[in-house]
């Protein structure tokens, strides 16, 4: 089946995710599309970034050549300083995550299930993988948002009844933002509800790209970015 309209590019996807951030929230962004979200924080919203590298509050990525090996994010990228930073060790960085002090984390995914299970760390084909802080974030953040392409490169749906890849966490995802849809995970195994669609996409075309059952919100709207 061909797409009824172009899919959103990564920047637009990140823009939509960034609309979820509340003023003053503490946010931890995973590697990839999630990191892009920091470029699109709405005006008037002040965030506090947390990184597993032992940092709360930071400036944008350092300009090329300005890198300081003692100021990095969890992806190993060099950051610029900002007034009001705090540094701490890994035990404390993860105490913050596990203790429920992170308001929102945005993570990429290989699969998300109908009950909000997340698989994002292990590709069976490789036979070995990095778990990093993904399981801690999945278990600990108050709110887990998945930002990903709706389908794999080969077109395989990534939103599935049950994850077939090894799990990162059970029932942890609360919102899925993809390049064609925004989908809520209802509490207590209530399933998935489509709440927004990309321009030119309707519930049927999104469902045909989704293996899990999708309920459709009576207030289904087109994704907006303002």
């Amino acid at each position, binding site marked *: 089946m061909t797409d009824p309209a172009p899919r959103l590019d990564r920047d637009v996807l990140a823009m939509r995710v960034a609309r979820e951030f509340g003023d003053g929230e503490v946010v931890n962004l995973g590697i990839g599309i999630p990191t892009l979200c920091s470029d699109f924080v709405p005006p008037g919203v002040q965030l506090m970034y947390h990184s597993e590298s032992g940092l709360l509050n930071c400036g944008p990525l350092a300009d090329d050549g300005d890198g300081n090996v003692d100021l*990095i994010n969890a992806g*190993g990228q060099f950051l610029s300083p900002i007034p009001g930073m705090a540094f701490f060790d890994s035990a404390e960085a993860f*105490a913050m995550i596990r203790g429920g002090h992170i308001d929102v984390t945005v993570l990429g995914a290989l699969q998300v299930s109908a009950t909000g299970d997340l698989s994002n760390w292990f590709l069976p084909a490789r036979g070995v993988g990095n778990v990093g802080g993904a*399981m*801690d974030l999945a278990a600990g953040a108050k709110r887990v948002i998945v930002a990903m392409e709706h389908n794999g490169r080969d077109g395989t749906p990534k939103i599935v009844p049950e994850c077939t890849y090894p799990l990162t966490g059970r029932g942890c995802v609360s919102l899925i933002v993809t390049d064609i849809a925004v989908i809520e995970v209802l509490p207590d195994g209530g399933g998935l509800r489509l709440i927004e669609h990309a321009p030119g996409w309707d519930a049927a075309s999104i469902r045909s790209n989704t293996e899990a059952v999708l309920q459709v919100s009576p207030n289904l709207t087109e994704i907006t970015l303002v």
Partner: protein
Amino acid sequence: MPIDKTVNNFDEAVSDISDGSVVMIGGFGGAGGMPHLLMLALRDNGARNLTIIGNTAGIAAPTGFGWPKGVEPIDHAVLIENGQVAKVIASFPVSGSVSRPNAFEKGFRAGEIELELVPQGTLAERMRAAGAGIAAFYTPTAAGTTLADGKETRVIGGREYVMEYALHADFALIRAKTADTLGNLAYAGTSRTFNPPMAAAGKVTIAEVDEIVAPGGIDPERVDTPSIYVQRIVERPPSSETGVVLP
């Protein structure tokens, strides 16, 4: 005698690490906070059959993770390539890129190196528990996943938790910015990461530092790792002396 934990050189600092030792290696994965010269000395020491514990198993060479451009990374790979490592305990053991495997991944695929994969927060907490005399604890991390396979679980307050044990080491090789002669340490920026919990978890903790100062040279409010956790300190000589280029 005035307490002075200074050791004169890196070879001497690691001289009693021997075959089968369990060795923690500090840092996050990039150049910052990593004990480069202690790792090189351990390579020269030649002890084999080591278990190494760290956030990564050496990922910088294939990816440049956390290293400035143009500088050759030095990390756990120097030990792995030298055939000294039997087992790795880490959260991020392999390169982020499937097509650029690190030395560990090659050894793992060849069946030469065993892996215990631990979520990053659980890894830090298990070290912290070891240092703090906590034998085991219940964490929500990894509940319901394959990384909890074979582990005890318990429902507390309606939520499932996994029981994890303290993680000790014979030696902790860590890196700080400044030490005083008593062994108090101060770090720089995001280079703390695993160094403080490892300092507490190691039976013998050896700190590679940029500078050793007299007691009082570190503000007592700025001591990040108190001297009680540190057995040996060794100062990095200038690159011109070692011939090793470091960032």
